[in-house]
């Protein structure tokens, strides 16, 4: 199996995440990292490729510092890494991002057929969870998304998902797009020697023209949405705290809810 895994470089959850004047995410290499759930995607890709003597190719779209996400993926065991980058990509919305990622998959598919595109279920900054569906639509491939358990049965993939109170099992023939959750597997921890080797590994850099995309198809120009306003919300004033030392905590809680008219939906 030839598996392409899409990985995103995102600001860490505990960092002071911010939006700049242009409404774009502020990114620095110190407090950004590989999107955590994408490690599950990499693990799933390695398992699929491993059981079929295949190949895992990591692809990211992002500024130069996003290369860190690719190096982490290489250290985990991916055999190749592709970095789609360049100023033209900046400010892309989900539509422009998916178009570029699909073009990168097509580019790789042109070298040798790609069987599976693996992704995480959500980028923990944008939390859009639509890139997998949009990439599937662009490629015209079936999708297995928000998968908690992925199995390979011959040349078909079976995925189980639990959403909105229902459990579903879907089968998809390859080529297909698959997104996995953080409970799909336990991502392997790269060894020190692999982390070091990944630092020096060669990375294929592709611009939008390499991917056959015009200027107006990518980045802000290729987007259908625009951030018109971004403002930091005022700091939280801090909690009102009571203790249950004298066993009154429950009653105080009830009084707070009643006084603030929060017992509306009661039966």
């Amino acid at each position, binding site marked *: 199996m030839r598996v392409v895994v899409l990985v995103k470089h995102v600001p860490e*959850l*505990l960092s002071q*995440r*911010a*939006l700049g004047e242009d*409404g774009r995410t502020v990114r620095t290499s110190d407090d950004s990292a590989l999107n955590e*759930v994408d490690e599950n995607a990499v693990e799933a890709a390695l398992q699929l490729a491993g059981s079929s003597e295949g190949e895992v190719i990591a692809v990211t779209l992002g500024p130069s510092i996003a290369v860190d996400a690719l190096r982490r993926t290489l250290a985990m065991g991916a055999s190749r890494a592709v970095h789609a980058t360049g100023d033209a990509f900046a400010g892309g919305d*989900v*539509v422009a991002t998916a178009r570029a990622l699909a073009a990168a998959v097509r580019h790789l598919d042109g070298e040798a057929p790609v069987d599976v595109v693996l992704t995480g279920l*959500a980028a*923990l900054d944008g*939390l*859009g*969870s*639509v890139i997998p*569906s949009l990439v*599937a639509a662009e490629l015209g491939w*079936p*999708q297995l*998304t928000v998968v908690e358990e992925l199995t390979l049965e011959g040349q078909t993939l*079976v995925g189980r998902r*639990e959403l909105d*109170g*229902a*459990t*579903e*099992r*879907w*089968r*998809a023939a390859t080529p297909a797009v698959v997104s996995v959750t*953080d*409970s799909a597997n336990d991502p392997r921890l790269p060894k020190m020697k692999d982390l070091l080797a990944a630092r020096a590994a060669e990375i294929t850099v592709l611009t939008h023209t390499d991917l056959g995309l015009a200027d107006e198809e990518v980045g802000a120009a290729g*987007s*259908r*949405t*625009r*951030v*018109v306003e*971004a*403002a*930091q*919300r005022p700091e*939280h004033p801090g*909690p009102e*705290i*009571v203790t*249950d*030392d004298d066993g009154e*905590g*429950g*009653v*105080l*809680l*009830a009084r707070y809810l009643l006084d*603030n008219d*929060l*017992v*509306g*939906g009661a*039966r």
Partner: protein
Amino acid sequence: MTARQVLVVALGDVRGPVLEAVTLARTLGTPTVLSLQPLAEPDLHALGTAGVERALVAELGDARHAAAVAGRAVATAAEVTGAHRVLLPTSFVAKEVAAHAAWLLDAGLLLDVASLAEDGDTDQVVGGKRVFAGTWETRCAVTCPVAVATVRANAVVATPADRAASTAAEPLQVDATLPRGLELLEREVRPTAGRPALAEAATVVLGGRGTEGDFAAVEELADVLGAAVGTTRDCVDEGWQPHDAQVGQTGVTIAPRLYIGAGISGAPHHHGGMQASGTIVAVNVDPDAPLVQIADFAVIGDLQEILPAAAAAIREHLDQSRGS
């Protein structure tokens, strides 16, 4: 000039979130509803009260569970009605359907907005939402003619229309062919214990690892409040709660009017999925727990004592006000 057509999509039952989306749609133009399942008399009545004159029903069988097929139905309905604004109550599934519909309609996608308004100067629709675990407020415009938006539950209060309509349902023909090589092997709907759905409930009571797996007190308070029950990933990993009860960045994102978290530390992964909640209440033995710090009100102590006492006090209050 005729009013703008707005399509509201009901992927499942006609409930709160659909009526909230219809309420929002009325501020943008004339709402038409697309349902992917048959509409019963009470559904039509609820839609009529909300001012919906026209409902389209696309019956796709099991194929409706494939995002590509449901997305095709949404795109078809938008074309049939001439709607340039398409609203879906949000969920993981709804976002996938929205993505496919947007792809077919060459539309811009606004994800999980709390507000939507037309900008008369630019003729663009603008969505508002909180991002980065609720620390930033953003407004985002769709710059092309057609917009598809997923709308957060509880962001708008559902209200009846000034004038009720009598809703006429008509069938919508949609190609229900599944994408090549895709097959639904099995689908099982789990029982809900009669509680509201987590993603749409106005009140949610959540228990974390501090419950040590005993959710009786959490459920008791939830039931007295008419609330949904939620949890953290640790409790899902322990097998104490099903996966779709998980709130957080890799679970359900919720923004209820009232969030009560008991025995939950408030890790950033959890935080990111609930911080836009209206009022946040924490019950924890540890005053330094991060959830206590971001809460509006916190009780420091043992949840197994505090929750049942609170439930009893609220029950007593309700009984008294009913009796009087």
